């Protein structure tokens, strides 16, 4: 067990180093940060001076090791764009993204699982057919379009929900949450649904497929032979067995929701990490971009590690090997 852990952690560290190296190599093609940092009035001389003082004239490999060194020391530096601390920026943005992802994942689960079960158990019902067609539409409309549609209907025409931003915050010290007030929920509901729509469809379809599969297996037949009630068979036996692969996928999907909520966040002006990353790209804000990529890398490494450990615990066969 310990050996397994140690190996995975070393592997994780290597992945992080590679993520940093790849991002640093890519930054060279993003443009010149100095150009956005000084006014157009700046002389060529001034620009050179700044480039030199930021170490942008050094070879990429030296910049890379300097960055790694600083990260190890726990320093993420200052943003080129706002000159404010990158660590603070991340800390300020993280709650917004995590809450948005959490609410959207809950939304996807609460609606996705029952819908999947229903469509599997009653494949011929009109509602099932309707849901399946609807989910096809949901999965094929791009996020930015569904987001804009929501804004247009609920904010512009009906005026029920705010179209953008994150309000109604309660300050818990290190964490500002929008989940404790109704106003906060009125801001989060539209982006969360937009972001969760795809996950909802995915979960629904997976649950349905797994359910159909399990319902055909022998042990369901034996359960019926034992005279168990339909309810018992469907929820106790079938659903439980079909959820195992679904849980794995949900775990990994949560990761990608956190990391790639970029489009939803920019459409709803949601002040999360994705929006921060987009702004950093257009400004060539290297410290912010590298910190974000490192964070996403670390998040995925941790998530994968957790999933592996869960397998280890759930599946007895793995333990015996």
């Amino acid at each position, binding site marked *: 067990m310990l050996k397994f852990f140690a190996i995975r952690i070393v592997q994780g560290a290597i992945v992080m180093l590679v993520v940093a190296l790849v991002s640093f190599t890519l930054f060279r*093609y*993003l*443009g*010149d*940060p100095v*150009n*956005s*940092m*000084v*006014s*157009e*009035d*700046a*002389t*060529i*001389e*001034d*620009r050179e*001076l*700044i480039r030199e*003082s*930021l170490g942008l004239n050094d070879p990429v490999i030296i910049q890379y090791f300097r960055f790694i060194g600083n990260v190890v020391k726990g*320093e993420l530096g*200052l943003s080129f*764009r*706002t*000159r*404010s*601390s990158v660590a*603070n920026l991340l800390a*300020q943005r993280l709650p917004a993204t995590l809450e948005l992802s959490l609410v959207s994942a809950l939304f996807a689960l609460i609606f996705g699982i029952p819908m999947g079960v229903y469509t599997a158990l009653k494949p011929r019902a009109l509602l099932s057919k309707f849901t399946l067609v609807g989910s096809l539409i949901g999965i094929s409309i791009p996020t930015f379009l569904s987001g*804009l549609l929501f*804004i*247009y209907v609920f*904010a*512009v025409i009906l*005026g*029920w*929900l*705010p*179209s*953008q*931003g*994150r309000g*109604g915050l309660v300050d818990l010290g290190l964490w500002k949450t929008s989940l404790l007030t*109704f*106003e906060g*929920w*009125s801001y989060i*509901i539209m982006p969360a649904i937009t972001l969760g729509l795809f996950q909802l469809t995915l979960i629904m379809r997976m649950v349905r497929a797994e359910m159909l599969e399990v319902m055909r297996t022998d042990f369901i037949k034996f359960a019926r032979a034992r005279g168990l009630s339909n309810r018992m068979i469907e929820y106790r036996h079938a659903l439980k067995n079909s959820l195992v692969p679904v849980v794995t996928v949900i775990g990994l999907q949560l990761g990608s929701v956190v990391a790639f909520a970029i489009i939803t966040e*920019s*459409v*709803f*002006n949601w*002040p999360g990490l994705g*929006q921060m990353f*987009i*702004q950093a790209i*257009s400004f*060539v804000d290297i410290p912010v971009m590298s910190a974000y990529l490192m964070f996403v890398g670390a998040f995925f490494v941790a998530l994968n590690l957790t999933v592996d450990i869960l397998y280890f615990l759930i599946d007895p066969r793995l333990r015996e090997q």
Partner: protein
Amino acid sequence: MVKRKAFMFLFVALFALTSAANAKTLRWGFASDALTMDPHSQNESPTINMLRQVYGTLVKRTAGLKIIPDLATSWEAATPTTWIFNLRKGVKFHDGSAFTAEDVKFSLERAAHPSSDYKPYVNTITGIKIINKYKIKITTKAPDPILPSYFTYVFIMDKQWSEKQGVTAPANFKANEESYAVRNTNGTGPFILVSREPDLRTVFKRNPDYYDGRVKIDKLVYTPIKEASTRVAALLSNEIDFLNDPPVQDLARLKATRGIKVMSTPQIRTIFLGMDQSAKTLRSNPDLGKNPLADKRVREAMYRAIDAVAIQKKIMRGLSVPAGMITAPGVHGYDKNLDQRIPYSPKVAKRLLADAGYPNGFKIRLDCPNDRYINDEAICQAAVSMLARIGVRASLNAQPKSIHFKSLSNSESDFYMLGWGVATLDSEYVFRYLVHTRSPKIGAWNHANYSNSEIDALILSIQKEVDNKKRDKMIHKVWKTIGDDITYLPLHHQVINWAMSDKVNIPIQALNETYFYQATID
């Protein structure tokens, strides 16, 4: 359960919206936030506009761009190289401390600090002498006739406060810690900064002691919204009252919406194409063996091939003014007679190309930004197809501004798009950056590599001439020469549009600065 919850959300949301509609609060939206609240750290227009709400300057401009007193009540050039500024008495900074000549001296020196981004505005100053508490003498190394227009950008800080907070210099690029001045302010301006969350929300309240008229807005809330359609939706759904950059394609719709009005005025920014006239060969077509752009006939042919009126009608939806010179009305030295375009004529253009030895045209690459100017990429596409009609086969290379400007400063472009605004509203500002031969201290944006020693000498004397008549004559001469030489291909002057709730009244200003201290809400 779910239904009831949803209903409750809606109810609460409605409540939130009505309570936010306080009559004296102005909610303002714009694409990008100020980069910092440090007054001398970033010379960038959204930053300047935000700072202007909080900080005062010695002199300022009216909405009609005239220079008027702000913290200085009067000023005069005592000799060609010395200026006397008389300061306003009884002004207080937001923390209550008094404004005196000490603060002016401190701020001018701070703006000249190596880590300041405002050095070009104060680098002619050699001496600042405090005569008394409300009088200051400024010496320049050579006569500097446009010093007052530079001073409209040099914000005045409180010396004591800056020393106490350890922000006597703008943050250095190598600094490891955030400077206090990045999020905190102490100015003399019409609004007091209440809270600042970069890229999220900035709140100001009225300065009750403001010296230049009563400010009628109690609270100003600024929200940056990057996505254009989201910005428009926020205005339509009454979550913001004022937008100073609505997208051009939504203007017609906004105008047609009840309760929303749109204002427009020509902006001080001209869009043009530049051509490298000094390169030996074309970088984008080295096989040609020579540089056709060095030949004036070729440049004229390209000029005549571009139909600026068609661009105005089809791409800018009427919201631009076709230009014949690369500076806009409102800039000192602008001349309506020079702002006439050479007539559009593909026929003449073809003949000129043939005369120059390119009867079949040539290949070239046009470099364009796609996120900097209004409809920049579409304009370039149009130019490419217009040039194709005379045989100049331009391939379009449209890229984000960060890459576009990088390739310009690395001298990697033969043919490029650029827009130029004029901070000082004086032609000298255009000449200094776009016309003077490119060198380490001057001519930074002259990527056309135009070089004319006679013009260079003229520009240097324009910078020093205090006799307005003589100076205007020289400015005219430079404009005439570079127009005749077809140094640049002018396209159009941009137009500024503001969209707002029809309850808001605010004067529109050609530099896109928002004078909220003059705004009212009905």
